[in-house]
């Protein structure tokens, strides 16, 4: 089989068109800048005698119009490529661009549905709905959701297994035909990497890896930062001084040195991640308990039937995840042991406890746990400082004074008066921070810290590809661009959110 061309059957028509739009855009931009320097300005509105407004368009306006239409035509051509890839049956006609576009079909459908529904109901959706009034925010949201849906539908998008090796296709260029494997997808769309794995499938699966860790790590960093930042800002005093010192201590640590010290097999063997996880993960549970208790203090039945079970469940989850310890099994075996006093059941108790996996709790592999914990550890001091700053600002407001006069407890004020009013900046920072966490995870992967060498995550794929970068540029390029677009999307989304939340 012949290798695929980039643009397939549509190429002869669309390629010159796209090239033309790029040239038009570039020339118009250059001319526009020259005109601006010369002193020509875009048209100002003119109020006519009959109270209508008109514009007398000059050369700079035509340049701007040309740039605008060049962008539209370019995007239109890109859409036609993708549609062509979906509609045309033969792989040769689709080309690489078309075939990749067709592979992402479920993602496109999900994106279109999300956007149509959101725009339809945007007036009823609060801050999220307002995002759709903002072009930059919408573009960012689209980029983020593209990768979110890719992560969700990764199983349908991939063409090969992320660790399937076809040794004949080592470092083969994009569009190479797969021969000798029955039933497999007939092409390596974006080529093969140094071991003969499909670059495209690894990039898609990498999205799943990144998007399962980054948002959760950011969420935990926020929980830790909020739990410590609220009392530090609100109460001040020794506690504040101490925690601020600790936060500055962590911030003074170069991130990369910390990663190199923490994310090693030796540290995992010494059990450090478990201690750190024990310390960091207990804070969110305390946060949930205080949150519920301070609100429903006066309603004992809610405390008894809602708050206590939720917190107990979280505690079980915590013990099961961090310590791999299930108190139920432990109590049951102890009870049976107690009933059989005098009989030799000690050994039976031990083996039973070993044999039962905790019912609630996730078995996190040591490598993953240390990556997760270090990312939370690095992020939470910054969140702490942001929260503390916000609290210092908000606690002087009248509604806080009103709550104090009402005789509310300080935790109630912190969690139910101050925190909701700090949500705007926190949401914006949350988006930014997911992006930053993604970069950190990529850094870890780039240095090969804490990741399985087989893992398709973007950082380690870039790292593998960089050795032969100048000869075979195609393996590290897709993950690099993927990481770039996702972080850029998150940044644009945060920017849009900030702009919209400042409007009211």
């Amino acid at each position, binding site marked *: 089989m012949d290798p695929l061309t980039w643009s397939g059957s549509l190429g002869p028509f669309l390629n010159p068109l796209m090239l033309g739009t790029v040239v038009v855009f570039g020339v118009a931009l250059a001319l526009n800048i020259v005109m601006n320097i010369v002193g020509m300005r875009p048209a100002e509105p003119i109020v006519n005698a009959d109270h209508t407004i008109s514009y007398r368009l000059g050369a700079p306006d035509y340049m701007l119009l040309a740039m605008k239409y060049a962008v539209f035509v370019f995007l239109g051509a890109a859409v036609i490529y993708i549609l062509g890839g979906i509609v045309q049956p033969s792989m040769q006609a689709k080309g690489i661009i078309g075939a990749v576009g067709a592979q992402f079909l479920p993602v496109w459908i999900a994106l279109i549905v999300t956007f149509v529904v959101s725009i339809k109901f945007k007036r009823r959706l609060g801050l999220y709905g307002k995002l759709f009034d903002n072009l930059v925010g919408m573009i960012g949201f689209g980029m983020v959701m593209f990768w979110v849906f890719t992560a969700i539908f990764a199983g349908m998008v991939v063409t090969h297994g992320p660790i399937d090796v076809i040794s004949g296709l080592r470092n083969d260029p994009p569009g190479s035909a797969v021969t000798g494997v029955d039933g497999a997808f007939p092409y390596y769309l974006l080529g093969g990497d140094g071991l003969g794995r499909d670059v495209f499938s690894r990039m898609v699966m990498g999205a799943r890896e990144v998007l399962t860790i980054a948002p959760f790590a950011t969420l935990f960093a926020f929980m830790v930062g909020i739990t410590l930042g609220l009392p530090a800002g609100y109460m001040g005093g020794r506690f504040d001084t101490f925690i601020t010192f600790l936060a500055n201590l962590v911030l003074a640590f170069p991130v990369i040195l910390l990663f190199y010290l923490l994310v090693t097999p030796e540290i995992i063997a*010494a059990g450090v991640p478990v201690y750190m996880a024990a310390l960091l993960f207990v804070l969110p549970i305390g946060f949930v308990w205080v949150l519920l208790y301070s609100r429903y203090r006066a309603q004992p039945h809610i405390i008894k039937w809602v708050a206590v079970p939720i917190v107990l469940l979280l505690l079980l989850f915590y013990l099961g995840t961090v310590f791999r310890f299930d108190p139920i099994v432990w109590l049951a075996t102890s009870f049976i042991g107690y009933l059989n006093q005098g009989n030799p059941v000690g050994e039976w108790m031990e083996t039973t406890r070993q044999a039962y996996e905790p019912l609630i709790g996730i078995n996190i592999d040591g490598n993953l746990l240390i990556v997760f914990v270090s990312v939370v550890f690095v992020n939470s001091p910054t969140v702490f400082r942001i929260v503390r700053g916000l609290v210092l600002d908000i606690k002087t407001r009248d509604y806080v004074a009103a709550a104090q006069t009402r005789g509310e407890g300080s935790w109630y004020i912190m969690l139910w008066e101050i925190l909701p009013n700090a949500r705007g900046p926190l949401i914006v920072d949350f988006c930014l921070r997911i992006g930053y966490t993604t970069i950190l995870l990529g850094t870890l992967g780039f240095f090969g810290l804490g990741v399985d060498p087989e893992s398709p995550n973007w950082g380690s794929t870039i790292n593998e590809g960089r050795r032969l970068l100048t000869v075979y540029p195609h393996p590290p390029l897709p993950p690099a661009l993927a990481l770039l677009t996702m972080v850029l999307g998150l940044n644009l989304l945060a920017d849009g959110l900030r702009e919209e939340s400042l409007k009211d």
Partner: protein
Amino acid sequence: MGLFILRRVGVMILTALCLTFIVFFLTNLAPNLEKLAKTQGNARMSDAEVVQWLDNRGYSRPLLVRYGEWLGVAPGWTRVADDGTESGRCIDFGMTIAESPAFCGLFQGDLGYSTVSADDVSNIVGGRLALTGWLMLIAFSVMVPGALIIGILAGMKEGSRTDRTLSTISIASTATPEYVSGVLFIILLASSTAGISPWLAENGWIEGRTLFLGSSRSAMDDITFWNFSLPVMTIALYGMGYIARMTRASMAEVMTAQYIRTARLKGVSFRNIVMKHALRNALIAPFTVIMLQIPWLLTGVVIVETLFNYNGFGWTLVQAASNNDIELLLSISIVAVIVVLTTQLISDIGYVYLNPRIRIS
């Protein structure tokens, strides 16, 4: 002011002590020492031999005592072997216990011995720091002016088309970590098979096969435009966006101030308003950001030096950490911590100095 600086220096020393102790603790965990013994001694040592090896080299005593020795506040260990040879922390080859000093640690200016390079740490760190210093210096001299110009152009007319374009560019630059931009730059500018180099070479516009060199190893002896542009660009790009955004925010805020409006109403030209009235006040906030950017760049330096094979400070950090070279790692963390804390101190003092409102109150 004097008291303020004194307090800050006190906190700085305390922070440095805490941080080095954490590094000391983490590098001296039992599995790390075992790894050290096996890499330095013999990979197939038995557990008893490992213990013996560590015993002979003074690693098996309490952590705090050894930290004190490293600092130079506790006397260094000495040991007389069964055959009469004397060894100890402060004893160089061929010395006896009586001849050697009792204390040798940080306070005595002795940074210790690098187990990987088999050389004194002080010999290694200095040269490596100088190499990284060049990289940082050139990167800063590209990054700061570029960022300030972008930020001022964007901030002087908030909401204009220029502002939106430049803001998006700076957002894009903050979203491009070094390992992505470095890879993209190498592919675009330094690959003999892809990017623009083959095309340029075909037309005979460049002498070599590539526009820039993808490895900066030769820059360690001789820095040229050809071998040093890519690492500098890579570092500058990531930091640039952040400084530009801060400058833009500060500039936009200043441009809405009353005195700028007064100047406009008096008929001062826009150019003069920006250059003479707004700029000075708008540059206070970016100054702080630029200073705080230095420690941030450290991560970038490590990535860039690894990517471009430039054996500076960052590269040494990677080597020391992956080989658990304890004393080299400690010195590196000391240097890093000093850099971070000094820049914080300078940015605080500079902020107070530049901003008369704070200085007077």
